[in-house]
């Protein structure tokens, strides 16, 4: 939409209740007038109840997991039992004859993994080379899941094993078995993923990527009064959505319908269209409800590809839902990291040099970076970054809530805390000194530090390691930063019927964040209705294009398009109703279910009555997400990235038992910004989720592979420990309302900012409690006792 003509407008910007000021922006013509602050709105900014809550508490919500179609077959996948091998032969003949079996398919190409730059010696392989235990090979569709499972046992696979490596630091060695026989590329697809092209690769080490480097590192360290150094390690974390990945694929004649548990229906359609060489209009992807995603549910995937092949062969709908083991092993994880971080600072706290050498393994996938925080959060003239992806014979990584940044901030915010300790400065005062770019997130964090310090009781924070007994308590804080992203395309459609019915459509989806609800609120606000008067339709690729539920970008992308569509509809209605109220269209306002004259609220008509009396039968209006009024710092594919980011500051209070190594997070204060909060209650829920996942990452979760076999040892829910009710700390959320003067709603996301700072805040509290740094996640008793013993 960059061709839009612009007009200058004066808008309010800043933190509501703190420092609102007037700014001048170049606004695309036709944008609705800016909204006032939330306090002056009727529906937006209010704790409207989640629109789909009733369906969810009664079991009526239909997930992909619940789709049952007439004649539907059940499919199961055959997965590799070995971590690295060539497949010499596959014999499916017995499986095909097994009772109830309707189709068998062998996978031709593995998605979601890096690929050889030059297919070379693998060009003649009859099947994809096995590079991790659990890699999908084939699938069977049968009249029952049990029949499909039985048939899997009849498929004969002849492997020719190759040496394998599962641990990051082993794979880094020159003597390590190579996961790939040559250099690789990992292309981004509609299914996500991807890494920078053309990087050097030696053995399993692909890199370095040096993005964010600047200045003269050597000079920076020379100018430093103090230098802190540390080597930080983070583990592999699996997404573990409660609803596993799955599809029901229904190929009839030449049309394909895919019910998918996904974070983006359009990515399912597009990747399937690409693989099956179908026009996009022949494919319909549907997701009424998705039972969690957290970054791993994009595209059609290997399992979805198999299901489509099976449906085409069997001429019947095919349900392929992963079991819990497959979910842990083969469809994504947060890569591990090894971060060597060195920071130089002057006595006054100003940073002079940041050096990062990082390594991460995303198994057979590239893209195991550690985020942008090291070079983008704080002012520092000299930054040197070198990151390497390290391949291992393990399942592929995928985006995971705050991808990269969560690992990066764990190390970086601890290092900043260490600088403060070395300088004898208060960690908050140090941030005041260095967190100084001219951007919204910086201004937000300044306010959030003040609020958080007061709520947690920062003034009662003692010197590190003050407790003399075995149980030690401490308080720490860490800062969050996540890009403010706008999707490059988003269109909403509003349909209004003469009976007063209002429907809103967008090809985005609600994966549990509350998208339906904020969509309805924005439309309702513009039309003077209640949110529940607006029937929202999402989760269908046939609707106007909408954003992926990832990158904290749905609310920022969707709500301005929704408002623009509803605003156009309201203006259209006003022009038709104006004569009935002896007014000009511009003098009519929509409020409390009525259309009334601005100067005389008694001269009014009910919404439906007004439509009827104006003779309106059907109105359809569309609205687009126009570009941010200040434009973007950069564009990467479908991501428009603002020069402003999203902030957030978290404080944690922990208790460490130095005899057992048990760590308990007792309390978290999370202070956040997300532009204009459309629904504070739903924002709070998102932040609870981000903090709880952060506690879980910091303390418990750890994917463990068995070295000799490459098999995951804890690919289940009983041994892969995740925070439950008993480990949930007391969490207090405080939200600021920040107007940026950037769009017609000024809303931004919060899912990722809520997650990225938690582990670092806990680690800094651990230091305050014990006087020791915890360099290794998770903070299990073994890692904690090792940290306490360290010099």
């Amino acid at each position, binding site marked *: 939409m960059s061709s839009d003509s612009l007009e200058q407008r004066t808008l309010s910007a800043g933190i509501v209740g703190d420092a609102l000021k007037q700014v001048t922006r170049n606004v695309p013509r036709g944008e609705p007038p800016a909204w006032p602050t939330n306090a002056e709105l009727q529906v937006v900014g209010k704790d409207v*109840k*989640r629109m*789909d*809550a*009733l*369906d*969810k*508490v*009664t*079991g*009526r*919500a*239909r*997930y992909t*997991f*619940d789709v*049952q179609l007439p004649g539907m077959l059940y499919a199961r996948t055959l997965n590799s039992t070995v971590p690295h091998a060539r497949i010499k032969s596959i014999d499916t003949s017995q499986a095909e004859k097994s009772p109830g079996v309707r189709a068998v398919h062998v996978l031709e190409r593995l998605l979601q993994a890096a690929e050889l730059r030059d297919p070379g010696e693998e060009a003649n392989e009859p099947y994809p080379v096995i590079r991790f235990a659990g890699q999908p090979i084939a699938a069977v569709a049968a009249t029952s899941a*049990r029949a499909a499972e039985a048939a899997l046992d009849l498929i004969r696979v002849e492997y020719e094993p190759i040496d394998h490596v599962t641990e990051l630091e082993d794979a880094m060695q020159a003597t390590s078995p190579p996961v790939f026989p040559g250099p690789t590329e990992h292309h981004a697809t509609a299914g996500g993923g991807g890494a920078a092209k053309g990087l050097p690769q030696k053995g399993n080490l692909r890199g370095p990527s040096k993005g964010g480097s600047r200045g003269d590192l050597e000079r920076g360290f020379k100018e430093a009064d103090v230098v802190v150094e540390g080597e930080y390690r983070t583990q592999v974390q699996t*997404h*573990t*959505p*409660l*609803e596993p990945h799955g599809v029901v694929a229904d190929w009839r004649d030449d049309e394909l319908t895919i019910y998918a548990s996904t974070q983006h229906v359009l990515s399912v359609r597009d990747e399937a269209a690409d693989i099956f060489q179908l026009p996009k209009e022949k494919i319909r992807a549907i997701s009424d*409800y*998705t*039972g*969690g995603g*957290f970054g791993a549910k994009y595209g059609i995937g290997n399992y979805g590809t198999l299901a489509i092949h099976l449906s085409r062969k069997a001429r019947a709908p095919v349900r392929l839902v992963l*079991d*819990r083991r497959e979910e842990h092993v083969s469809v994504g994880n947060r890569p591990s990291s090894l971060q060597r971080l060195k920071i130089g600072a002057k006595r006054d706290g100003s940073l002079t040099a940041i050096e990062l050498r990082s390594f991460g393994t995303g198994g057979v996938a590239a893209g195991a970076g550690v985020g942008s925080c090291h070079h983008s959060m704080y002012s520092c003239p000299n930054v040197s970054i070198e990151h390497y992806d390290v391949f291992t014979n393990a399942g592929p990584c995928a985006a995971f809530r705050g991808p990269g940044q969560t690992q990066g901030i764990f190390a970086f915010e601890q290092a900043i805390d260490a600088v403060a300790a070395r300088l004898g400065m208060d960690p908050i005062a140090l941030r005041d000194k260095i967190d100084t770019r001219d951007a919204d997130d910086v201004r937000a964090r300044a306010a959030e530090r003040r609020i958080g310090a007061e709520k947690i009781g920062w003034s009662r924070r003692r010197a590190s390691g003050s407790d003399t007994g075995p149980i030690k308590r401490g308080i720490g804080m860490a800062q969050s930063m996540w890009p403010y992203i706008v999707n490059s395309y988003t269109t909403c459609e509003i349909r209004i019927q003469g009976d007063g019915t209002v429907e809103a459509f967008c090809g985005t989806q609600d*994966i*549990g*964040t*509350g998208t339906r609800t904020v969509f309805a609120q924005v439309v309702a606000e513009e039309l003077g209705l209640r949110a529940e008067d607006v029937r929202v339709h999402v989760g269908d690729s046939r609707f106007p294009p909408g954003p992926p539920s990832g990158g904290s970008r749905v609310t920022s992308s969707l709500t301005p398009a929704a408002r623009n569509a509803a605003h156009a509809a309201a203006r259209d209605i006003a022009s038709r109703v104006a004569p009935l109220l002896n007014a000009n269209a511009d003098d009519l306002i929509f409020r409390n279910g009525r259309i009334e004259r601005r100067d005389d609220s008694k001269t009014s008509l009910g919404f439906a009555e007004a439509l009827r009396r104006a003779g309106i039968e059907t109105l359809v209006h569309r609205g687009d997400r126009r570009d941010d009024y200040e434009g973007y710092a950069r564009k990467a594919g479908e991501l428009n990235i603002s020069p402003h980011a999203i902030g957030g500051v978290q404080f944690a209070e922990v208790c460490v038992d130095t005899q057992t190594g048990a760590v308990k997070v007792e309390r978290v204060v999370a202070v956040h910004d997300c532009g204009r909060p459309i629904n504070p*209650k*739903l924002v*709070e*829920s*998102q932040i*609870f*989720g*981000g*903090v*709880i*996942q952060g506690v879980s990452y910091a303390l418990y979760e750890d994917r463990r592979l068995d070295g000799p076999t490459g098999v995951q040892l804890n690919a*289940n*829910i*009983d041994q892969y420990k*995740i*925070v*439950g*009710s*008993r480990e*949930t700390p007391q*969490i207090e959320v405080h939200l600021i309302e920040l107007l940026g003067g950037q769009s017609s709603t000024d809303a931004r996301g919060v899912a990722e900012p809520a997650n990225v700072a938690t582990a670092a805040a806990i680690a800094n509290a651990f230091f305050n409690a014990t006087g020791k740094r915890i360099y290794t996640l998770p903070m299990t008793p073994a890692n904690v006792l090792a940290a306490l013993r360290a010099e």
Partner: protein
Amino acid sequence: MSVAPHHPPGREAPGTFGPEPQPLSLLVNGEVHTALADPATTLVEFLRDALGLTGTKIGCDRGACSACTVWIDGEVAASCMTLALDVRERSITTIEGLSREGELHPVQRAFIEHDALQCGFCTPGMVMSCAQLVDSNPDCTLEDVKTAISGHLCRCGTYPNIFKATLAAAEMTRAAGKKK
């Protein structure tokens, strides 16, 4: 959470079953439903695949996440760890049967009020455990709520709101009891 015993003490065990699929009748949400099943059919498979009651979810299929929680004779149980044939002559309540005469259970109302759900996949199981707690102990404390859902996994992190919702439902139930 405990797995339902094969049959309650003092009652006669039901007759033999299988190995071929044969009609199986279960009392579900106050009505007898009959469908073909073989002996390996779990209760959750019977509910979902034979009866189309898909409100009850499967998260792990090994009794570790409690998404499949139903009531058997009023007690919570993991329906993925219960064989369908073992609950003949028992009374099964699922999420679909929790509302009575179109009125939501106080826990369901409180879950909506307090936003005690996000993606919602764990929600039916959570609701069944919290409703059983509130029904059996309207004086429940925060610790009781934590215990009641300690076997449930919610990956979205709705626990704080589940605590609030369940305590609020308990309070509603106590207030309603006093009125009577």
